[in-house]
């Protein structure tokens, strides 16, 4: 569950730490989302378009990781 009511902490150390934590969270969401899209039959080109990045970027990050899921699709 993700619950959001965004605030920026006054202490810069806390605010900067939050930036790092949000980036790591975004990466985790991306991994799960890409995995599900591939399982649903999306191509890397379609996923790349949805993410607004190049197909190469998606492939570089995820193709090895999802080799088993994508095996019969390419």
């Amino acid at each position: 569950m993700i619950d959001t009511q965004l605030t920026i902490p006054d202490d810069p150390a806390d605010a900067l730490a939050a930036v790092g934590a949000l980036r790591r969270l975004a990466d985790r969401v991306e991994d799960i989302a890409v995995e599900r899209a591939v399982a649903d039959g999306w191509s890397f080109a379609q996923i790349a378009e949805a993410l607004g990045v190049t197909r190469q970027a998606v492939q570089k990050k995820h193709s090895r990781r999802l080799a088993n899921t994508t095996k019969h699709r390419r």
Partner: protein
Amino acid sequence: MPFQHFAKDTRAVVAAAVREEAAADGRGLVEAEHLLLALAGNPQLQHLGLDHEELASALAREEAQSLAAVGVVAEELPRASSPRSSSPRLATSAKLAIERGAKITAKRGQRQMTAQNLLLGVINAEHGRVPRTLQLAEIDIGELRARL
């Protein structure tokens, strides 16, 4: 990974542990906090009493706390089925820690970096997840430094 500067007996142990920690994290990146966790399980540093489980739990709390500070509560997010890379690359925080470890090694007139020197390099970070995590684990950095 630039582990050629390490003393032979620590190299394999550290490299394997670091790979394990970074893989468990799933991002394909070795961060300074992964070095910290890897070193906490190092037999040569056992006398320091750094508890791997305790540090891993403090690291997770640091994450939750940092997200909560901006109003994000992310609980029970499912895990991806596999990590991004089986051979993770060094992130900036880890590179800086190793650089500091190398400087300490040179300053001490040693030819190769020991696990102690690397740990010093890791805990000498002024900012970032390592000092925040150590604080949450109630570990006195000054005291730890004095024992290295």
